């Protein structure tokens, strides 16, 4: 059940309506029950695993104060869960126990244990309690709700218990919450169904059937994949934030116009913010703080370790290793040349130069994302080699447009142009659209316009999952 399935739309409508009518003191029990049903809907193994793991972390947190060995044990179990999740997620050889009446898939069980976003929250919780920056939660039901709150359960945003649990007792739903939440939800649906899912087939065509395309085609597909991933994941986040707001909760935003970044380090402060904050707080800062006497070397080691962990989190394999190496190189270069770059950018501080920096950063990110998207390391290398030779296609239509406008009919070509036009317009005006959505006044023009665009151009029943659901 993904956020854009008809079943989920029915489910969320009923949940928001019932929750709104309930007295505030009963709401968290209701949302907790809904969360458990949501997790159980995937499979029963997931529900059992999540409940067991939540109990484990809840009770362990009460014992770890002043007990370093137990704290490290807790971290190791959660970290192992993430590694196992990535291992079982990337292999098809699951273990299967079958009894006469009950069939139980052990790999599904382990996969659920390690749902990465959920495990990261547990690591943050244990660390905060051990460091005495927060007190261990005393109410089990509230901790379970924090763990299984369905808008953030699958793909975040990653939140600390203190940021979420404090909202349970102060749950208030005003008309402004409902308006802003609905407008955010609509924005997310638009980004996913009208933009991301319409870009997906062209990207898939080049990345998965890559043999005979020209360099320009591959380059355009690499650009489109980065844009697709941005719309896909930020669309998911908008939907999660919108649903949470209609249920009376505020979640952290994950994106701050990342494709307008003028440096790669700025890109990482604007992209998947809750995850990067987690990595910065629990990996980067502790490492660099301990090594701070080594001056210039400390941040380089911090970057190296952070991206190594990030690579394991995204998936174990050469493609993710290469993706991480790209960003390690970019960030180390930026760290070592910071002063020279600052002087340069102050000297050439005009719109044209800024656009040039944005273009360079966008290209660097797209280059690393070739490894991120490719099915294998060899495929990624082949695609990069393709960009380097035979760049201009002999026949513009057959060489460039046809492979991206999948289908081969005139209507597919028209669809491609419309998608690119909508994507570019959205990127140009996204700040203004964001202001409309986050305002507390209902904007009828925005709602009607979005609904019409979704009805006319939306991809229904595409079957594509959200990209970040795999992590």
């Amino acid at each position: 059940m993904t956020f854009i399935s008809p079943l989920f739309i029915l489910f969320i409508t009923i949940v928001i309506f019932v929750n709104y009518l309930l007295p505030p003191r009963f709401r968290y029990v209701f949302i907790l029950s809904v969360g458990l049903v949501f997790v159980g809907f995937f499979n029963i193994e997931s529900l059992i695993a999540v409940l067991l793991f939540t109990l484990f972390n809840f009770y362990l947190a009460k014992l770890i104060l002043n007990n370093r060995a137990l704290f490290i044990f807790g971290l190791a179990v959660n970290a192992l869960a993430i590694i196992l999740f990535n291992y079982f997620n990337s292999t098809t050889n699951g273990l299967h126990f079958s009894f006469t009446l009950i069939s139980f898939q052990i790999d599904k069980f382990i996969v659920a244990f390690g749902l990465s976003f959920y495990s990261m929250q547990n690591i943050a919780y244990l660390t905060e309690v051990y460091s005495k920056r927060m007190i261990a939660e005393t109410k089990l039901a509230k901790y379970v709700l924090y763990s299984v709150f369905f808008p953030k359960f699958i793909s975040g945003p990653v939140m600390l218990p203190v940021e979420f649990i404090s909202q349970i007792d102060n749950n208030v739903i005003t008309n402004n919450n409902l308006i802003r939440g609905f407008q955010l939800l609509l924005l997310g649906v638009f980004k996913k169904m009208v933009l991301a899912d319409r870009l997906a087939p062209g990207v898939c065509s080049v990345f998965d059937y890559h043999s005979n395309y020209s360099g320009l085609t591959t380059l355009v597909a690499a650009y489109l994949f980065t844009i697709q991933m941005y719309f896909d994941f930020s669309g998911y986040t908008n939907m999660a934030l919108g649903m949470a707001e209609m249920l009376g909760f505020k979640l952290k935003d994950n994106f701050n116009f990342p494709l307008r970044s003028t440096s790669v380090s700025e890109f990482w402060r604007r992209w998947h913010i809750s995850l990067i904050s987690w990595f910065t707080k629990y990996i980067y800062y502790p490492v660099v703080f301990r090594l701070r006497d080594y001056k210039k070397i400390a941040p380089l080691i911090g970057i190296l370790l952070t991206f190594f962990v990030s690579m394991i989190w995204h998936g174990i394999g050469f493609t993710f290793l290469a993706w991480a190496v790209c960003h390690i190189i970019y960030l180390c270069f930026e760290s070592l040349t910071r002063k020279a770059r600052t002087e340069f950018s102050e000297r050439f501080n005009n719109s044209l130069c800024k656009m040039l920096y944005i273009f360079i950063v966008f290209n660097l990110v797209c280059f690393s994302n070739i490894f991120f998207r490719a099915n294998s390391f060899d495929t990624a290398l082949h695609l990069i080699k393709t960009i380097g030779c035979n760049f201009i296609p002999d026949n513009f239509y057959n060489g460039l447009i046809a492979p991206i406008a999948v289908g081969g009919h005139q209507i597919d070509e028209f669809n491609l142009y419309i998608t690119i036009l909508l994507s570019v317009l959205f990127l140009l005006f996204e700040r203004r659209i964001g202001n409309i959505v986050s305002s507390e006044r209902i904007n009828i023009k925005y709602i009607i316009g979005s609904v019409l665009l979704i009805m006319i151009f939306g991809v229904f029943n595409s079957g594509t999952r959200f990209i970040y659901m795999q992590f």
Partner: protein
Amino acid sequence: MQERLQKVFRKVFNNNNLIITLQTSANDIKMWDSITHMELISEIEVEFNIVFSFDQVMQFNNVGDMLMTIEKLSQNHK
């Protein structure tokens, strides 16, 4: 003390005209990111001859928080 701290900020951020207030935070200085933050911490420790704990560093939200901790540690040092 604020002037000495300002001197450290100017050195780390390579800007001789930089003026800090108690409310100045990472949002106000373009170059103040996770990389320069730790460099700043290290330079402050050298300038004031103090040693921060990791928890203290994690709780800095602005220059005011930094100054309060520096004052506390300097007094302990005396």
